[in-house]
């Protein structure tokens, strides 16, 4: 079994308006030292998945189903208290907006110390030294001074580095980064991504990057999982997804990325329509109302839920279009328009 393995994970939220199926049957595997990028729009279920892995839905209103295996332990059925002991130590998370994700009233140092001392019985002095080390490790200058600074006293990039330091302070084996660069400038983004790559190598951690930004996963991810409407609709290596994408949604994502090497007068190709309601998921293929090619499925798109099927060597796609049709559309229609300059 892989280091992290999800088997048909379901996270449903009962509300007054109905059952919200945020994650509806998600499976994937990840080894240590490898990076998985989970891509999708807002509301596709990416963050809910990561919170589910961390066990942060326990005690709430969510209903969990399926299995989460971490280093041989199953977490969905495990007690909340046991999962709590793993949080921060075995698995850690880096959040999107470090300014709101860190407590404004405590110094960065004290927050890192706190994270460290939950799982390590050491004195404050030792923990403080460790915190200074971590801050240095993530590239913050003068860490012995900055350890007593408050979150709002850092710049955006430095703040995210501090957040990363906090997440890594207990040597976690699984690291989940939820939109780690979304709140940062583009130049700073690159630095952070480099940092994360280096740290992953140093710690040999399994890294999941959750983002809506394909550019980010292009940098870091070994494998990419595209989510839509609570389900995985395409899964493969980075090369599979970028060179040989086979799902109309993935094509749309690739097409809607602004690229510097394209002519500015060329219009972006957005995906028409908006993300589906997770309470009333469209019948059949969840993407079909927005799919340009649904008329080529012979009516199945609106009636039958497509299964996740292997198209070639580990590359999985969930679509009613026949494989040949997909590949031909890719070669003839999509790919040329993407490369046009």
């Amino acid at each position: 079994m892989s280091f992290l393995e999800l088997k048909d994970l379901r996270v449903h939220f009962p509300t007054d308006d109905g059952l919200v199926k945020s994650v509806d049957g998600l499976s994937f595997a990840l080894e240590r030292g490898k990076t998985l990028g989970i891509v999708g729009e807002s509301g596709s279920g990416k963050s809910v998945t990561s919170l589910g892995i961390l066990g942060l839905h326990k005690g709430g209103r969510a209903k969990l189903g399926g299995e989460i295996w971490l280093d041989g332990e199953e977490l969905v059925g495990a007690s909340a208290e046991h999962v709590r002991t793993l949080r921060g130590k075995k698995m850690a998370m880096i959040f999107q907006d470090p300014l709101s994700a860190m407590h404004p009233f405590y110094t960065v140092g004290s927050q890192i110390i706190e994270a460290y001392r939950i799982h390590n019985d050491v004195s404050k002095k030792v923990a403080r030294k460790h915190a200074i080390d971590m801050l240095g490790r993530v590239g913050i200058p003068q860490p012995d001074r900055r350890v007593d600074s408050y979150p709002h006293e850092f710049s955006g990039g430095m703040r995210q580095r501090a957040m990363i330091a906090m997440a890594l302070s207990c040597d976690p084996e699984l690291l989940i980064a939820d939109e780690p660069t979304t709140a940062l400038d583009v130049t700073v983004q690159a630095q952070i991504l480099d940092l994360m790559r280096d740290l992953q190598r140093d710690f040999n951690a399994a890294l999941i990057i959750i983002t809506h930004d394909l550019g980010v996963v292009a940098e870091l991810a070994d494998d990419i999982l595209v989510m839509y409407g609570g389900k995985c609709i395409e899964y493969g290596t980075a090369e599979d997804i970028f060179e040989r994408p086979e799902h109309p949604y993935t094509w749309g994502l690739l097409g809607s990325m602004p690229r510097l090497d394209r002519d500015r007068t060329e219009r972006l190709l957005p995906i028409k329509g908006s993300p589906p309601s997770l309470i009333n998921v469209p019948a059949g293929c969840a993407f079909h109302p927005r799919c340009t090619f649904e008329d080529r499925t012979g009516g199945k798109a609106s009636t039958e839920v497509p299964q996740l099927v292997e198209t070639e060597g580990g590359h999985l796609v969930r679509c009613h279009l026949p494989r040949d049709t997909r590949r031909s559309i890719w070669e003839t229609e999509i790919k040329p328009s993407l490369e046009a300059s």
Partner: protein
Amino acid sequence: MVTYIIRRLIWSVVMLSIVSIITFAIFFLVPRLAGATSEDLAARYVGRTASAEQVKVAAEKLGFNDPLVVQYGRFAKGIVVGADYDYGPGVERCPAPCFGYSFLTRLPVWPDLLDRLPVTISLALGAAVIWVIAGVATGVLSALKRGSFFDRAAMSIALAGVSMPIFFTGMVSLVLFSYGLKITVAGGTYTPFLTNPATWAYDLLLPWITLAFLYAAGYARLTRAGMLETMNEDYIRTARAKGLRERTVVVKHGLRGALTPILTIFGLDLGLLLGGAVLTESTYSLPGIGKYAIDAIGRQDLPQVMGVTLVAAFFVVVANLVVDLLYAVVDPRVRLV
């Protein structure tokens, strides 16, 4: 930070001076605007059998014929250096700060205030401890168990606490607990703290609880609202993600975040209360400065009323300053400028 404190202190002194001028004006200028003469003002000081001649002499002696600025100057001087008063066989020095002396009781005001301040402070601080603990705890629990029976019951009782006036709850409590069941002391009983701390606390039990009931309600609601907000913040999610125990998350991260408005309100409430918990002291006949004020107002004893007004203003100004400073301590994002 230090410059900020100094600047605020200077401003506080200015503030208090302004308050003293306004108070002085209310008592000695406004009646004149309404047509009162020096004799009318002096009439309050001389008792009911004084002849017109005596009233005139008193008006002169009390300085009501002097220009207002001079009168205020004399008053201000008294506060700073003290004044003398003639008590018949001799002349007594009223040391600074001399808030004047009451012509009705023939006693200087400041020693009275000093004597009564511990009572009000005892009442206010004791009740404050109770209402903060009870109110905040209830608020936290209500927020965590939002929608539960506990939450609804607690908020209903809170509503009752805020709606029922202290003279009602006080009177009923006295009749029920002090005179009926005889488990608490009668109204008017007060033992100074230094005499016997145990009796001091026992005497104040009923006033503390009824007064705290009034305030705890507001604090429970405030805390509940604050907690509901902070518990939804991202840093709470981070705290949990770090693997912290839920209790630590709630108190160290959640409550700490909700603290600022509670602190502000607390400072102001306490400041006002120290200026005289008028209703509570009247209901329980406690000899604090609130009761002093109400008795003085009833008797129209102006020097006493002025003295209490200035003391109350002092506490409010100080409370404001302390709250502002604490704000910066609690929330490091606040920059004191």
